[in-house]
């Protein structure tokens, strides 16, 4: 199998070849993009100085590059090359523009979040905190751990076993086709609808109210399809030779799955589970609806509302005060650090247990 094609500059031609090529078009020198970029940057800088607005400067840089590069190429190399240069310039600009919001967001979260975070912020709840008194997100941190833990407890076994059914038992059966389809449908459930479902379920069974458990159920609904998908992919990677070798030794099917198939794919499955957790831990809408909010520490998932980190950020934001905004950034930094740590853990696990394809 050939690797995907990549537009890269080939080996440089010697001067002799260049001058000898009467059949060759005039070409822009290799340093042309660099020169144009420098010129555009100078233009952008000038705009920035004159207008005092960095956004205009960036826009000036990009526009100058987008116009100058194709123009020069058209003049020297012809129309087709000009169009080609224009597209290349656009693709590079798209990449550059996308970095702006990401860098802005991360920088803001880190710089404002660090202002908010201190020992008290992490170990106090907001119970009876008024005015400018120091409060914290301890209750939300605890709630997030409990609610996400519940979600993982529900969805990990169901997800993994469902994937085992799909790959090992139900190949081609009607039931497995139906389940695959429904997993697809589940992937598309808007998160707030999952929250409404958990709320409706509990309202019908226990009467209206918001609980940590309801939030956990809502999140598990969002988590199951991710776990099924990840596990399915990993089980598919296990070579059939392993299964057949095991059968040939007279090992029963379930032992083959438990002792051969699962251990072979465990790294990928764990990675998938951790990534699924990282995905749902930042969900806000379902928890807002299903778990509600409180200023107190609540560790009982079936008794009253339970605060979670994303909801903490949201409620602090809706205070629309200086302190609320600060606390929201503090919560956001905490949440992002947790999500990034989970991603890192998933990566490390994936590296350690990378599927060994022997042949």
């Amino acid at each position, binding site marked *: 199998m050939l690797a995907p094609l990549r537009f890269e500059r080939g080996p440089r031609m010697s001067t002799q070849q260049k001058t000898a090529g009467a059949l060759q078009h005039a070409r822009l020198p290799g340093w042309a993009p660099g020169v144009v970029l420098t010129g555009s940057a100078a233009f952008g800088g000038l705009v920035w100085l004159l207008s005092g607005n960095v956004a205009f400067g960036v826009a000036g840089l990009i526009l100058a590059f987008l116009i100058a590069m194709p123009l020069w190429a058209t003049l020297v190399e012809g129309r087709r090359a000009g169009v080609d240069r224009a597209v290349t310039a656009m693709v590079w600009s798209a990449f550059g523009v996308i970095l702006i919001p990401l860098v802005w967001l991360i920088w803001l979260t880190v710089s404002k979040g660090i202002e908010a975070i201190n020992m008290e912020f992490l170990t106090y709840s907001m119970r009876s905190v008024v005015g400018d008194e120091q409060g914290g997100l301890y209750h939300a941190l605890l709630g997030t751990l409990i609610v996400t833990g519940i979600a993982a407890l529900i969805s990990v076994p169901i997800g993994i076993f469902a994937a085992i059914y799909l790959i090992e038992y139900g190949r081609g059966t009607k039931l497995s086709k139906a*389940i695959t389809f429904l997993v697809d449908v589940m992937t598309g459930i808007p998160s707030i609808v999952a929250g409404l479902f958990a709320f409706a379920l509990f309202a019908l069974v226990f009467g209206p109210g918001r609980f940590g458990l309801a939030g956990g159920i809502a999140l598990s609904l969002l988590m199951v399809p991710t776990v099924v998908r990840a596990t399915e992919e990993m089980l598919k990677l296990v070579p059939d030779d392993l299964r057949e070798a095991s059968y040939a030794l007279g090992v029963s099917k379930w032992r083959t799955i438990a002792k051969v198939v699962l251990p072979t794919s465990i790294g990928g499955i764990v990675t998938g589970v951790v990534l699924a957790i990282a995905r749902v831990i930042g969900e806000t809408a379902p928890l807002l609806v299903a778990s509600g909010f409180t200023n107190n520490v609540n560790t009982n998932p079936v008794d009253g509302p339970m605060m979670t980190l994303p909801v903490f950020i949201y409620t602090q934001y809706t205070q629309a005060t200086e302190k609320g905004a600060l606390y929201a950034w503090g919560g956001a930094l905490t949440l992002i650090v947790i999500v990034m740590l989970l991603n890192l853990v998933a990566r490390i696990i994936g590296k350690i247990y990378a599927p060994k394809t022997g042949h």
Partner: protein
Amino acid sequence: MSTSLDSPPELMPPEDEPQLEGHSTFGDRFFRFLATSAGVAIMVALALVFLFLGLEGFPGFDVDPSNYDGKGSFGSLVLALLFGTTYAAIIALIIAVPFAIGVALFISHYAPRWLSKPTAYVIDLLAAVPSVVFGLWGGLAFGPYIQPAHVWLHEHLSWLPFFSPTPSATGRTMLTAGFVLAIMILPIITSLCREIFAQTPRLHEEAALALGATRWETVRYAVFPYARSGMVSAVMLGLGRALGETMAVSMVLSSAPIITLGIIGSENSRTIAAHIAQNYKETTPDKVAVLIACGLVLFAFTFAVNALARYIVQRGERSHA
């Protein structure tokens, strides 16, 4: 590679003949039961979602008109909200799609090798940022920052219906929400597109280059035709995500259930998800029923969009087979 993934039972004699049995039939049956019931549990869960949302939401279709936020009936409320939902998602798509395809091309074809992988990683990073953080950034930083742009648009382009309302003083507008949504759906479109672009048969591309095509012509005539159905479905999946996105929109947008084309005023159309999130504190049964009914409509709507996306993918696969 062997062809059958199946286990001894298939190799064994048919049912009516005595079967060879290992020593752990109970374990086998039990494990099979576990796996099957997990699969069935997913079906039951989804059925329950419909059942409970239906049971609790059905009364919401027809309650006292005072519960419909100034709208006379469920129909007109949900119509206004559906308009807002679609409008916000379409604005987001218009902004996101060119960038998403550009970045996908950058990763798959244009970037030098050393830059390609880190870029893909950065896009994944963007996908990992929780939506509430995007909402925070949009509401506190991005919205106020582009507020002057609203004024400028109003001053120069107010003859367009989009820019005719008096510009909002806070920047909490449909325009801002569209930008924030666009950034949120960009990673999903990008990652799907780049995978499809990378799958283009290398021979097609080399043939194009050998015929003297420029890089853009190679992309235009070899990569895009091959990837068309995949690109469409990626965009549809992005649309599905934009439709269901709640927090970022409800934190950025100051809205009401109205139908307006204006995207820079302080009165904007509201999305279904934001409507639910902003009224989640409601406790009167009638209002809760209306919210759940709205959720049901949103579910049906996103389901239709996702189903369409899947259908396009399947059709595309068949035409390539």
